[in-house]
């Protein structure tokens, strides 16, 4: 490319028409329970819509797996036993999840009415549940399932919370107005601690012991609805200390693994930490002292985990907060920063570029919108007058009670598909002028039962569905029917689910990424595995195949970017150069993963990426930024003259004008669509927080 051309291209790259979309009413649901598996560093999270999410704490809190929820399913407790994940809820069932197929494996009826709580012992042999009918039930863990063993002595009143003594011989149970300690071998209730009621008007109300924690020295912590955190001596049954933490409820407790710290979550959105320390230097005896209070939530903190280096909390305000304990970190790192995970890392938006259609995925329905239009031309900063307003074309309710787990819209806008854990539905869309007609494709092949990820080929003749054991089903589509063609299977034998799927523009290649961090590339012409991209230690968070060069761009959860030439089966020169040069530290410091990769059809050098806070056009023809280079340089460039500008350009053109992004997509050369979901809009839909007196009113 001549120097002259290069200059002109720089000059013309500037302006974009941005369709700023804020009508996607994405609403995450409240966090109800969580369980942290210290061995695998995975956090399991249950939301009030029954969905379960697994975050990998070793991999920058990447949302590795999402198990979709179900209507009328309410999970009250989660627990890990080794690699196995169990949940229990008010429907009275204990469920084990199939983490490879992202669905419940089986459910066992506990016959005790609604289940309020569930724990496993440290030995990993048993699960105990607390039921509405006042029983504590023990289940034995078998390889293929769980097996009811026995009830402990039945009590009057429901069992709200349980905690197993590390030795496994005793269980503490939080009930109404009291705590019981059971001897597990005999099943007898040995001790009873009465919990005081609140003062004043709440005297007449029963105190609910929302949470108990049994320490190995037989100290028992309890958190109750009167706002107290109480410390009991489990041997003598005496109350050692009462901390009035809140005027409202203490909803959750969590002990750190070394039992030096206990955290309590309250209805005020605070997390209060207690530490086992010597209160002053002279006295060597340690005691439990209230130390810190964190306020990262506006609403109830319903779920807590103290993982030693950080406190993880979640609640009604839907966000997952990782609050590092700074004394545990010697130097600044990714793990030492406060993280708030507000949005899912999955794509909920599909875009049909040609017609300007957007498909929004909700748990219960799909919405299809057509973007507005404007024939004006404005200068940067202008808001154009709309010739046509955006239009909601379709509101498609799902069938059945399972929530939608994935959806896809073909790039021509002619096909639409979604999947739940139990079924897949494919629809043919026809738009003539303003009328939209939708026809369900009947008689799907039997093999097509459920998909983790759906994807249409660019010419809309095929549908690819990620199925079990990392396989991909190839389905051919035509006017009248849809036919099973082939199953693409990985050679690695991975059983992990695929979470990313993309095809090339010429229809020749299909790339699939799974939770084992593998990326498989299939040749669709011969329907065979073409190659495996060298496995990198972090999970891919976005994939894209370049329309002209067929280079595969993989962005990982740790923010690394790779460009892999599918044809040559090796990393491209640019990718090697990027690895050698290193990414800018500000790029690596970003705290949300890149969730989309798209390309500029007119300019092969451009790659468009986005995360929650920015979108970025990488211009491969420009020099890479040094560590000393100003990384976010758009403002500086704007202030420079046209002559000076080329000397300050670098490859990463980051635009942070738009925030809380769910999707950024290039429609054509000079127009973009950004889907924003402002946090304010989410917050405004939350229920009112508990009333807090601020002044003497």
């Amino acid at each position, binding site marked *: 490319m001549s120097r002259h051309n290069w200059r002109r291209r720089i000059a013309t790259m500037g302006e974009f028409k941005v369709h700023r979309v*804020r009508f996607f009413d994405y609403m995450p649901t409240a966090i109800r329970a969580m369980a942290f598996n210290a061995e695998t560093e995975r956090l399991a999270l249950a939301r009030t819509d029954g969905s379960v999410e697994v975050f990998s704490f070793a991999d920058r809190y990447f949302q590795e797996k999402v198990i979709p929820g179900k209507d009328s399913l309410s999970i009250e407790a989660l627990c890990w036993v080794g690699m196995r994940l169990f949940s229990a809820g008010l429907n009275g069932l204990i469920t084990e999840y199939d983490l490879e197929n992202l669905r419940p494996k089986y459910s066992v009826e506990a016959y005790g009415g609604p289940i309020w709580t569930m724990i496993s012992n440290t030995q990993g042999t048993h699960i105990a549940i607390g039921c509405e009918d006042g029983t504590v039930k023990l289940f034995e863990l078998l390889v293929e399932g769980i097996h009811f063993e026995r009830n402990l002595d039945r009590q009057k009143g429901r069992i709200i919370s349980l905690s197993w003594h590390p030795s496994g011989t005793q269980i503490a149970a939080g009930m109404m107005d009291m705590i019981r300690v059971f001897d597990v071998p005999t099943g007898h209730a040995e001790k009873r601690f009465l919990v005081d009621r609140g003062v004043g008007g709440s005297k007449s109300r029963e105190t609910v012991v929302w949470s108990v924690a049994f320490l190995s020295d037989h100290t028992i912590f309890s958190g109750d609805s009167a706002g107290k955190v109480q410390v009991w001596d489990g041997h003598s049954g005496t109350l050692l200390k009462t901390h009035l933490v809140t005027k409202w409820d203490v909803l959750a407790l969590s002990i750190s693994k070394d039992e030096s710290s206990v955290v309590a979550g309250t209805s005020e959105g605070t997390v209060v930490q207690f530490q086992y320390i010597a209160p002053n230097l002279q006295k060597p005896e340690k005691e439990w002292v209230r130390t810190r209070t964190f306020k990262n939530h506006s609403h109830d903190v319903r779920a807590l985990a103290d993982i030693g280096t950080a406190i993880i909390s979640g609640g009604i305000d839907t966000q997952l907060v990782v609050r590092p304990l700074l004394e545990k970190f010697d130097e600044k790192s990714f793990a030492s920063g406060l993280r708030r995970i507000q949005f899912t890392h999955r794509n909920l938006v599909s875009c049909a570029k040609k017609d300007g259609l957007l498909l929004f995925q909700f748990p219960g329905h799909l919405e299809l919108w057509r973007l507005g239009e404007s024939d004006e031309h404005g200068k940067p900063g202008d808001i*154009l007058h709309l010739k046509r307003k955006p239009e909601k074309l379709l509101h498609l309710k799902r069938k059945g009670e399972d929530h939608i787990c994935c959806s896809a819209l073909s790039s021509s806008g002619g096909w639409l598909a979604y999947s739940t854990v139990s079924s897949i539905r494919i629809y043919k869309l026809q738009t003539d002028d303003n009328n939209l007609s939708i026809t369900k494709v009947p008689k799907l092949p039997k093999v097509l039962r459920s998909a983790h990820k759906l994807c249409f080929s660019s010419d809309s003749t095929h549908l690819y569905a990620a199925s079990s054991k990392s396989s991909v089903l190839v389905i051919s589509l035509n006017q009248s029917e849809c036919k099973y063609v082939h199953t693409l299977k990985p050679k690695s034998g991975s059983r992990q689910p695929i979470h990313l799927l993309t095809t090339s523009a010429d229809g020749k290649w299909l790339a699939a990424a799974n939770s084992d961090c593998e990326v498989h590339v299939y040749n669709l012409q011969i329907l065979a595995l073409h190659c495996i991209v060298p496995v990198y230690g972090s999970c891919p968070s976005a994939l894209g195949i370049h329309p002209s060069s067929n280079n595969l761009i993989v962005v990982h959860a740790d923010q690394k970017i790779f460009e892999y030439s599918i044809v040559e089966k090796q990393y491209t020169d640019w990718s090697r150069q990027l690895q050698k040069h290193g990414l800018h530290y500000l790029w690596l410091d970003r705290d949300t993963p890149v969730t989309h990769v798209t390309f500029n059809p007119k300019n092969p050098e451009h790659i468009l990426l986005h995360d929650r806070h920015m979108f970025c056009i990488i211009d491969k023809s420009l020099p890479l930024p040094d560590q000393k280079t100003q990384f976010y340089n758009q403002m500086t460039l704007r202030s420079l003259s046209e002559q000076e500008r080329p000397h300050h350009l670098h490859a990463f053109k980051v635009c942070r004008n738009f925030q809380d992004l769910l999707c950024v997509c290039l429609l054509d050369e000079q127009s973009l669509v950004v889907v924003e979901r402002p946090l304010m809009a989410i917050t405004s839909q939350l229920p009112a927080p508990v009333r807090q007196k601020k002044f003497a009113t």
Partner: protein
Amino acid sequence: MATLYEGFTLCGLLHTQNPLDSSIQGIEQDEDSDHVVVTDSTRSVTLYKVSDRKPLGSWTVKQGQLLTCPAVYNRQTQEFVVVSDNKVIRVWKKEDLNLEKAFKATVSADIWRIHSAAEGEPVVLFQRGAIRLLDSLLIAPQQPIEDVLSAEEVIRWSTAIVVENQPVVLFTTEQRGLDYLYMQRMNNNTLQKYRLEREDSGAPPLSVSAFLRNTHINLLSLYPNGCVYQSAVLAQGQVALGEQEVQALPRSLLLRLPVGEGDLQKASAVALDCTHMAVVGVPHPSAGAGKDFLCIWNTNFQTLQAGKEIAGRIYGQVWCFSGKLFVPHGKTLSVIPYECQNSSLASALGKLRHAGAEEAKSPVAVPSWNSLLYEEQPQGPAGAMGTKRSKQSRKSQSAVDLTLDQLLELIKTGPAEQVQKEVERLVSRGDSGDLQTSVAQLVCQLVGRSQAEPAFYTSAALAQLVRTQFLCHSVCPDLLMIALEHKDYFLCQLCLQMFSDIPERITCACLKTFISVPDGDMEMVRLDPDSVSFMESLVAGGAQQNGFSPTLYDEDSCDALHQDKNMHTPQLVTCPVGLHKAVLLNEVLQTPYTDSLLLPHLKDLESLQVILFLQYLQFLYLKYSQDVCMQMPGFRSPTMTQIMDWVCLLLDAHFTVLVMAPGAKRLLSELHVFVKSQVKLFSELGKIEGSLKELHRMKPTEDVGQYSIEVIELF
């Protein structure tokens, strides 16, 4: 901001022998604000109509005679007065055509200037410093004129200002490199002399201009190095000093004008209002070294507000009459209209506060009250203090000012009258910053002695010290209690007004005392007339409306106010307490407090006191809710919120007692009616809340819509 408008030429200037000198001696205004009298440097006086730019009349003295003083207009007799050849006073009327035929009088000494301040009698200032009123001089023209100034002292500048209908003549003199300011008050014939400090260069001021602001005469003096100093002299009641000691006039640097290269030669500054000043002959800060500019500066913020280049030589002369500046330059006399508006920053920063307060106070007419009760001039307390002070000072003319330490020593032992006198002298002497500390020391000392010696109590001195506004309650916590003990309600009122940090305990003590004092005793007390007149109007307001006089009703007949029954008819309300008691209670209502701290002290009130106070609050509430316009701007009056807060507080503190007390039953039921009406009001407001919110929400939704197409640029 100030603006200079396009100017116009009023007349040409004569050719003078020395091209550096202006050919205009002076410009004065006659009774028509559109007329000016221009006296040139030789022989003629011309009357111009400014808007028409044409002369209405011109008078000339004979060849060989010389006008030695600018002609002035005597508004009392509608005559012009001029001096020719230093000794001959000529008086003529507008209709006279020939100056030679006009009245002439030859006096025995050389005249420096005749000044005719607005509405005042012309004053003649002789070159040796003596001053005569024109009338008295003309009665006996050959009367001997004494020498006030020493032999080598010459007058440089003079002016006359009218202070409370009496002219005050100010003039500066120069004597062997020293400058003095003399101030002669015609009403009490006192002459004060101050030394004017010079700049380091030793140069005398280039121009001096004086104006009256509140009770002080302010002098603006411009020095060749561009510094403008402001000095303030008390217009009234200053003690004349003996010859032995000449005080230096304290001054503060107001503004340092840019001078360009070299010192200013011909320049002049004149104050336009409290914050604006016009300057000629000083370079424009952003237009190079040329000095031929007319500029308006804001002296508060030291900012240049407007500037205009003046063509031709500037003679360092400028006059200002009714919104126009008169500047002789080159060969013409130009008239340049201007406008000064108070800048919004000034008001925002509260710099205009005292001006505003004065304005609000001045139109309050309370002719009847003070004159009926006391044989005193109808004046505000400040004025009263002022006259008193001047009386005092005349008596003690020969006394020497005491230093602060001496005064503190005196307070320990001296008799009350002397202490009072000396405190007044000290306060009136200084505007200086150290007054703040000395005032605090004085008050503490005075209060300390009063506590030790119950017979010793100097009410006026304390009041004066409080009025300096340098005090607060924490400086002298016992002051208010001492005042209460001595039943000095005027001082109590002052303290309640001036102090913002009175503890709730003291507030409550005041309240208790005020409410328990019999009305009869209270009415004899002198109080701040503003607040009294406010209460008068509040009480009278109802009477006028309803056509009855409140005096017909006695205290207890506070008529049942069944609002719910006769909401539509005007209420007949009488004030349950006496006028002065009400005034004091109003002050209590307006003191800041914290309710939780006030509540325990309120419990000390007896039930009858509570009921009376509640009745009074109810009265205020009804008055306020009837007469929407009752809260007149400028008056210190309790707000509706304050009243309601106090009602709530009282009810909180005494509810059980009130429920039991039979006398309070009706009151409570009436208060219940208030609450009902308030609740109703709020429920009505609640109904429209939604629509109001919608209005509120309308704006932000405009820019953060659900969808927009925007253009951005990436580089």
